[in-house]
């Protein structure tokens, strides 16, 4: 029995399912936060959610707009300073999963949240960065550069399009496996890096050897052609590519209720 759901809901629920009950998850704002809280409200009630603002083991009833909403602190077990968060909790090795979104991702799961280059910028084609004169200036790295190396592994969730899935990111803000796929080999002290990417079309995982992202599961109704068309490089599919299980009614109900409550709360606050 399949409920009706949107591709965005499929993405969020699939991302939520990637998390399990005994994990400690460092949560990025936006899509990762939505997925992490759906996980907590469904199959993973004891999951530990940590936000970079210092809130540990937080259980928000509504989704935070920013990484440091009051709701996060009020529902947290404890709140530490931001230096302590980055030193003791992230760098100290207490994070199982760093859950990130991104503006651009490339075939080695490198993430760009810094600058989108102008189309005619030849430096990008040379595998270099275009920083000084971008087409779009993005917000920057925030916590991601060190979440990606200091968490034991990294989950990424992002909408699938040729704008986001590019062969080479215009700028490596946050390393996946590096421009050559081999950066982590030289750094034994850091985590495994991205282990799964969840989009609104499919699930991708890095090839164990090359670290190139390959499609391991297609969401129900999505064709290989759709994924190929939405990806900026010749995307590979696992031979035994599976179909992602559909969201169940409880998951959809939790997600929709959470989004409704969030919208209501935020517009109420706005009206003060």
């Amino acid at each position, binding site marked *: 029995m399949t409920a009706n759901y949107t591709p965005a809901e499929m993405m969020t629920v699939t991302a939520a399912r990637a998390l399990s009950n005994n994990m400690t998850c460092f949560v990025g704002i936006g899509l990762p936060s939505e997925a992490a809280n759906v996980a907590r409200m469904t199959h993973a009630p004891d999951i530990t959610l940590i936000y970079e*603002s210092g809130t540990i083991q937080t259980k928000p009833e509504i989704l935070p707009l920013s990484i440091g909403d009051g709701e996060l602190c009020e529902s947290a077990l404890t709140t530490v*300073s931001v230096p302590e968060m980055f030193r003791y909790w992230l760098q100290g090795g207490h994070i199982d999963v760093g859950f990130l979104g991104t503006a651009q991702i490339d075939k080695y799961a490198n993430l760009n949240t810094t600058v989108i280059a102008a189309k005619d910028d030849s430096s990008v084609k040379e595998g270099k960065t275009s920083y000084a004169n971008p087409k779009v200036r993005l917000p*920057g790295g925030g916590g991601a550069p060190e979440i990606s190396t200091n968490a034991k592994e990294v989950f990424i969730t992002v909408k699938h399009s040729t704008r986001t899935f590019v062969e080479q990111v215009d700028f490596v803000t946050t390393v996946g496996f590096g421009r050559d796929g081999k950066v982590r080999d030289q750094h034994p002290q850091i985590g495994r890096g991205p282990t799964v990417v969840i989009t609104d079309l499919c699930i991708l995982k890095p090839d164990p050897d090359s670290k190139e992202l390959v499609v391991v599961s297609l969401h129900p109704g999505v064709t290989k052609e759709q994924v190929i068309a939405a990806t900026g490089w010749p995307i590979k599919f696992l031979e035994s590519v599976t179909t992602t299980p559909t969201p169940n009614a409880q998951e959809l109900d939790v997600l929709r209720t959470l989004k409704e409550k969030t919208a209501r709360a935020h*517009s109420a606050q*706005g009206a003060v």
Partner: protein
Amino acid sequence: MAIFNSLQQAISESVKDGDTLALEGFTHLISFAAGHEIIRQKKRDLTLIRMTPDLIYDQLVGAGCAKKLIFSWGGNPGVGSLHRVRDAFQNNYPNALESVEHSHAAMANAYEAGAAGLPMAVFRGYIGSELTDVNDAISSVTCPFTGEKLACVPAIKPDVGIIHAQKADRQGNVLIEGIVGVQKEVVLSSKISIVTVEEIVDDLNTGPNSCVLPGWTVDQIAVAPKGAHPSYAHGYYQRDNQYYLDWDAISRDRERFNQWLEDEILQTGAN
């Protein structure tokens, strides 16, 4: 020892053109009232440090107070871009704006090192990130015991550090509660520190290990009720989300912004 002052006096006595300033508050307790007073007093050529330059720095940059921005995430949280900052970066309006860009971990460690009186912060960071290509301030040291190469950035030691807190007692001791960010570090690392507070109380009435800054670590205390608005103050008021949403349209347009500046800041008095 903390002097109790009006916000106007606190800013005029402490902030000079050309200073390096940190106004902190990690999404919580953002020093908007102090920022607005800096705009009102037309301070110029400031180097502005902040992990998350959001509306407050968009306003300072748009008003022409800044020549340089040191930051790790710049945006209007949950809404979009900082249009005044972008206009300065891309079009030198109202003036050119240099930038030094870090990660949060780097800045959090740099504030920590500043508070700890060290010249630099050492951390496991920037591995594989191209921020190292565009920021000269990122260096490294090698652990003499393991040979591991660790990232190293200069400690942050602002000329003036400004934070907003819930309350101070009559001796100038300050309590910060909830998301405490890097506020303690800013006050301890700055040459001069200004704290705005919601209220002055007889007794901070707090536990033994709360985040308290002794009065002798603070130079100026100014009462600024709702001084963090439109951000929030744990225990006092919530974030004004509508303000953040409205800012997008105001800040997109130079004329609308300049009108806002005139009406909401320059023509109003300090607290």
